[in-house]
């Protein structure tokens, strides 16, 4: 069947901001889908609120709406654009849920728009637990025993059938949000309530636990002619009980005979047909009893999923791209396999390597969060690696994580039985880095059976890990000569130079030198979908220690771009966006582009983003080897975040040509003392500060610059361990306990500027000319990490003189550092004073936001500058101040971490961002809040409980609302001030001071907006945390700074006057052009 000619335009839904459970894999899938549909000649309309995506680049679709992913905004877009069909299956659960909501609201019917890829009935059948269980019964398949509950009483009934422990799964949530495992009767009710609260349908499933069973996934595709193919099988190393997104997974499945695998395949194909997924990709998860092979179906996603991205990268089969083609009518046999060029897509990939994915966690940022892994996903990123054997693949994956591990380092444990008991616990409990405990157990002589009994990880995986540990023991004992003899075999097992160096007690360079002297270097093999049966035309490569190298480097002019590795808080999709742009721009400029990255979720690791792709860890060892084989003319390190930047000095020393700002300039910006010298030279000011190498040094510095102070370890990203300290006691605690200061790990001590306004600047410099790309004024005051703060471009209330001064300072800094490419500066404005907080001569997190706000592709321009073009030649010489406001708002993952305070701090914790664009600041801010899930009410009741310093400011803002349809309830102090200022409010008790108290009012659904600010003392913070938590779980918009509350009031007023409007980004950019003409 050829493609459909009865449709002209397709509306594609993206997945919105990056959140846990829904990350940049949907930018990858969405971008692929948009490109394919455009190539096929359809008009593509896109809705996605996430600006940090390639998908929302103005070139990706014909009309791009960075607007709220709500029924209201989507309806307006449908009204303007009149699409023929909607493709909701490439934007994760967010897209699917929005499509269902539009159907429910009758919008699709009203405008005669069809869904393609999946129909409502099949979405419901797959997502509704009861319907799904029924459907499985129809085809003779088993699901775990379960019961659906819409309230706690129903859940209790279901429990009688399933028994404890019981799995609690809310319906219609992504990443298992709200899911948990109840082990005891006591915790059951609370966990059920939480699940019900998280489910948009207030529904959850109480399910028989099959903890300890093996878990598998199959990725399938189906076309309109009912051809079904399995793209990839995946086996979870962590058994059932850990969300697959949090599990270490391996492709292909390792421990099934063909007989069992084919039964699973038959079941998956039957499920595809029974659920009725018309076309596209789906993912089915199975549990297998290790004792007798019994099979149960866990769940099915009738859409492209996180696992599809992994499967695409693992096999080279582009699932989302093919899914988009199938959705418009093609059949699999009509589509060519890009990689082999000769054979069709109607086949099942075969792979001749092993793929390992390890999730990346950031529990250290969420004090109070339990790091035990359950059915609710908590990881924020992942790294994937490819090796010829599992051992090689696993060890490559470990060093891809960038968690400081280069292999299976020993665990430090107490002596004797106490240590063993702790070790057993670490092997038993699923937590991040459990495999290190498994390895340690083997190091201490545990048998495979003993370890299996504790953790239920399949003995095949355990046996391989044990072999790695046995090899380590052997390597440690090796004589000088034996080291040479064993080295090749060790490399084949995946040992990194760094791990070998640790085992041999030498430094990494010595291992590398020895290896090179013996001419032991990796070869590169291709990922080709077909295990070499056909020739591969796409250079998608991985390293291994084998005989034949298939890299076949060219002698073209070439540039190598180092990506950002696994996503983490503080380093995510924004950097991948920059890398992809660099690749596009330089390819256009005639360079061969070579991408190096190990993050399977990204666009950068799509095999057709760059001319050549190396799916490799971003360690010095791995990058140097690629540089050795490719001999690039330049390497770009300033786009991938801290990961490649950390390598730049070593790369330069090894003779690798670094493009852009020199490593020395980067060091000058990062090294505090050199930085201070530069500021003095430029006559710029920064908050008084000092570098402390001991506790006493820190105390002395603090005494000089006065409290409050801001303290943080040097060389960090995302505000890791950054804190505001109020007094000496707090400082001593921080220095000793929190960061463990030492001469090697000094701590920066800055004067904290209370109530200052923060400003972020992105600029681009070619060494001679500096262009200010964007000046962003933060909404939240200094003290909230810039990544967690909302910001406005252009500034919404800075005086022109200050804006000018900021521009001047930025120019001076760029020229003095000799920046070549992008630079980001953070400022604090207090009164008339401008302070420099930090300078980063690299791409910043805000580059995609600014690019979309001003309509210029900054990363592309910067990469061309790095290749030697001047800004003049690129025709980018003037700052663009757009005629509209763009507000970036952060999206925070608190809902995944029960027990964590939601108060914003200098520690960055947001996972993603949204962008609100409108003609005035208030409306743009309001939009950004809606997009971030903080839907502002237009009337109702506001709970106000604010610290004394904020009373006047909040009162002024709130007064506007009491005149316009809002009632106020306030806690004692706040209410008294309000009364004095003539604002009526109803008194509400603080928690522990009577009933009904603040939390009770929130939980009763009696409150529509919460404004809660709190002073620095720990007691008032902990006293009020239950208010914020209650607002979060009830889904009520809440603001924890006075500045944000004031902006919100402005937003409400704007929305009261007129509901939100939508406009395509292309049109917004056209208006910038007109404005500047």
């Amino acid at each position, binding site marked *: 069947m050829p493609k459909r000619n009865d449709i002209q335009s397709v509306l594609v839904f993206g997945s919105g901001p990056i959140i846990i459970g829904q990350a940049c894999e949907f930018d990858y899938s969405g971008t692929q889908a948009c490109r394919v549909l455009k190539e096929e000649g359809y008009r593509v309309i896109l809705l996605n609120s996430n600006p940090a995506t390639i998908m929302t680049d103005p070139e990706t679709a014909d009309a791009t709406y960075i607007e709220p992913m709500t029924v209201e905004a989507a309806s307006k877009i449908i009204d303007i654009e009149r699409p023929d069909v909607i493709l909701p299956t490439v934007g994760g659960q967010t897209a699917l849920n929005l499509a269902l909501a539009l159907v429910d609201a009758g919008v699709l019917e009203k405008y005669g728009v069809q869904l393609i890829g999946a129909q409502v009935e099949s979405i419901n059948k797959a997502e509704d637990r009861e319907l799904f269980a029924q459907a499985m019964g129809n085809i003779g398949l088993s699901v775990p025993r379960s019961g659906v509950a819409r309230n706690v009483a129903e859940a209790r009934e279901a429990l009688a059938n399933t028994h404890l422990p019981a799995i609690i799964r809310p319906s219609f949530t992504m990443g298992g949000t709200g899911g948990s495992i109840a082990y005891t009767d006591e915790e059951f009710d609370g966990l059920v309530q939480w699940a019900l609260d998280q489910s948009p349908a207030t529904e959850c499933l109480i399910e028989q636990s099959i903890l300890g069973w093996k878990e598998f996934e199959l990725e399938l595709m189906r076309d309109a002619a009912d051809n079904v193919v399995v793209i990839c099988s995946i086996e979870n190393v962590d058994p059932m009980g850990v969300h697959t997104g949090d599990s270490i997974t391996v492709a292909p499945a390792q421990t099934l005979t063909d007989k069992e695998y084919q039964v699973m395949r038959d*079941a998956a194909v039957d499920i595809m047909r029974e659920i009725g997924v018309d076309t596209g990709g789906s993912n089915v998860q199975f549990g297998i009893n290790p004792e007798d092979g*019994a099979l149960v179906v866990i769940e099915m996603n009738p859409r492209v999923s996180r696992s599809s991205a992994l499967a695409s990268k693992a096999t080279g089969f582009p699932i989302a791209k093919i899914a988009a083609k199938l959705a418009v009518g093609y059949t699999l046999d009509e589509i060519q396999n890009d990689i082999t060029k000769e054979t069709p897509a109607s086949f*099942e990939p*075969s792979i*001749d390597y092993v793929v390992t994915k390890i999730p990346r966690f950031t529990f250290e940022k969420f004090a109070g969060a339990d790091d035990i892994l359950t059915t609710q996903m908590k990881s924020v990123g992942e790294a994937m690696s490819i090796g010829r054997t599992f051992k090689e693949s696993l060890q490559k994956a470990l060093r891809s994580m960038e968690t400081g591990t280069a292999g299976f380092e020993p665990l430090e444990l107490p002596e004797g039985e106490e240590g063993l008991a702790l070790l057993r616990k670490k092997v038993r409990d699923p937590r991040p880095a459990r495999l290190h405990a498994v390895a340690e157990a083997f190091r201490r002589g545990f048998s495979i059976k003993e370890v299996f009994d504790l953790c239920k990880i399949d003995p095949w995986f355990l046996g*391989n890990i044990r072999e790695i540990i046995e090899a380590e023991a*052997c390597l440690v004992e*090796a004589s000088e000569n034996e080291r040479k003899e064993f080295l090749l075999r060790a490399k084949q097992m995946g040992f990194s130079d760094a791990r070998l160096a640790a085992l041999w007690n030498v430094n990494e360079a010595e291992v590398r030198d020895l290896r090179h002297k013996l001419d032991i270097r990796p070869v590169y093999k291709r990922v080709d979908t077909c295990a070499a*049966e056909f*020739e591969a035309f796409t250079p998608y490569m991985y390293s291994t220690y084998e005989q034949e190298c298939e890299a076949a480097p060219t002698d073209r002019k070439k540039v190598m771009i180092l990506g950002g590795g696994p996503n983490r808080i503080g380093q995510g999709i924004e950097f991948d966006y920059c890398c992809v742009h660099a690749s596009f721009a330089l390819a256009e400029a005639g360079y061969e582009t070579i991408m190096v990255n190990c993050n399977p979720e990204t666009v950068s690791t799509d095999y057709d983003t760059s001319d050549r792709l190396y799916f490799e860890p971003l360690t010095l060892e791995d990058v140097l080897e690629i540089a050795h084989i490719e001999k690039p003319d330049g390497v770009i390190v300033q786009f991938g975040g801290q990961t490649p930047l950390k390598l730049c000095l070593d790369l330069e020393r090894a003779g690798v040509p670094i493009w852009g700002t020199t490593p020395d300039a980067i060091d000058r910006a990062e090294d505090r003392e050199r930085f201070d010298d530069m500021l003095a030279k430029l006559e710029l000011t920064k908050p008084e500060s000092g570098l402390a190498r001991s506790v006493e040094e820190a105390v002395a510095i603090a005494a000089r610059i006065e409290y409050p102070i801001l303290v943080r370890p040097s060389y960090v990203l995302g505000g890791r361990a950054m804190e505001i300290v109020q007094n000496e006691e707090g400082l001593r605690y921080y220095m000793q306990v929190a960061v463990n200061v030492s001469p090697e790990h000094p701590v920066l001590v800055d004067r904290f500027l209370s109530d200052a306004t923060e400003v972020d600047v992105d600029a681009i410099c070619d060494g001679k000319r500096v262009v200010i790309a964007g000046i962003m004024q933060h909404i939240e005051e200094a003290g909230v990490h810039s990544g967690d703060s909302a910001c406005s471009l252009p500034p919404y209330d800075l005086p022109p003189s200050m804006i000018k001064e900021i521009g001047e300072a930025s120019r001076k800094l760029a020229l003095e550092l000799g920046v070549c490419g992008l630079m980001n500066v953070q400022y604090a404005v207090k009164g008339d004073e401008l302070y420099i907080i930090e300078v980063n001569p690299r791409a910043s997190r805000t580059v995609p936001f600014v690019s979309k706000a001003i309509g210029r592709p900054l990363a592309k321009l910067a990469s061309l500058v790095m290749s030697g073009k001047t800004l003049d030649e690129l025709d980018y010489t003037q700052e663009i101040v757009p005629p509209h406001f763009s507000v970036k708002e952060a999206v925070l993952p608190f809902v995944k971490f029960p027990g964590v305070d939601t108060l914003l701090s200098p520690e960055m914790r947001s996972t993603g961002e949204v962008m609100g664009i409108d003609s005035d600041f208030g409306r743009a801010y309001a939009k950004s809040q809606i997009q971030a899930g903080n839907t502002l009410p237009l009337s109702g009741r506001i709970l106000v409980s604010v610290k004394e310093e904020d009373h006047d400011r909040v009162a002024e803002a709130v007064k506007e609302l009491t005149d316009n349809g809002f009632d106020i309830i306030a806690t004692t102090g706040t209410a008294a001030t309000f009364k004095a200022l003539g604002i009526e409010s109803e008194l509400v008790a603080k928690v522990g001071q009577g009933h009904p108290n603040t939390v009770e009012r929130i939980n009763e659904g009696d409150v529509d907006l919460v404004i809660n600010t709190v002073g620095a003392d720990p007691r008032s913070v902990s006293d009020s945390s239950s208010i914020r938590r209650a607002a979060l779980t009830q889904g009520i918009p809440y603001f924890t700074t006075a500045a944000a509350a004031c902006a919100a009031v402005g937003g409400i007023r704007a929305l009261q006057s007129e509901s939100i409007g939508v406009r395509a980004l292309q049109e917004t950019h056209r208006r910038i052009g007109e404005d500047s003409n």
Partner: protein
Amino acid sequence: MNARQALFAAKKPALLALADGTVYRGTALGAEAVGTGEVCFNTSITGYQEILSDPSYAGQMVAMTYTQIGNVGTNAQDSESARPFLSGFIVKEAFQVPSNFRSEETLHDYLVRWEVPAIEGIDTRALVRRIRDEGAQMAVLSTDPAQQDPEALVELACKAQGLEGVDMVKRVTCEEPYEFSQGTWSGIAGQPTRAQVPEEKLKVVAYDFGVKRNILRLLVENGFEVTVVPATTPASDVLARKPDAVFLSNGPGDPAAVEGVLENVRTLANELPVFGICLGHQILGLALGGTTHKLKFGHHGGNQPGQDQFTKKVSICAENHGFAVDAESLRTAGEPVVITHLNLNDGTVEGLAHETKPIFSVQYHPEASPGPHDAGFFFTRFREMVLRHKQGEAVTGAQIANTAGNVADCSADCSENKGV
């Protein structure tokens, strides 16, 4: 064995020498022996035991493209014949701690028991690329410590006789007729519902050219009473058993070299419904006047696209063949035969059906084992054809094959045979 010996000490060496002079050095696995055969590669990720025990590999050595082999050990239920017939086995890594609830014996022990020499630790992908680019060739695999001289082994490989023109069937066929009544693997709890075995029994005589058990099991599952007979059993002996149908099995080697079968097949094809798989399909093609040719490196794997030329539906097929029927030769032979299935990768013939007689055949393996079950419908079609024939209907293979009731259009696709 301590860790050092296992992981780093000099292991028993093994050598694989190709006729073109390429030599791969690895370590020995399985039996201590020297094997000679044509090297082919198989892209199935699962199912190494079924592959090892498939008689179609007689005269060949198999290189597995997937790198972790041996993970699930071996067991009594997953063998496709009484013993392996292949002459060597080539893997990247055979991990010695199998894990599966059905595992009974490690891969190594299984290979030792059946005297199959094997090599591990070589760059199997490099080997596969060589075969892909240069074509299948003869090789010698030695795990015998006394025979590790590369030049001598290359010379041996050069002198070795290839598959073309050699009757491999006589090495693998059974000696005496026997009844077969075993059904398919009972499976696991929670598997999809299976069709019931039909009550009404039909009698089929299966020619054993190197038959895989799963074919026989599926015939049983489809209500056949199965008698397996040696490859050269005269047609008259078969007719004397008064069967309702004849089945021509898979088997090894060059179809044109198999002696004493074509005349029998021609006779039976005029009397009874016939179904052939793989070598049986090729023999049927020859019996109907066509010719066969050797493919460059064949199709060996569980992921091949086989397209029904009537419905255009694609089945993911298990394939294992180094020869194919020439599409053109059948047309020129004037026998009224339609090509029912094509391989979409290279356009080679994968299925035939007769337009006037109850005969059809398939090049790939609808019995799977290993491989997907997509093409299992061939067995139900066979039953349907035999039943309708038995009831006196003048049913033809083409009628059975053409479920869509279309005119098959394959003139464009099969003209270019890229596999040659």
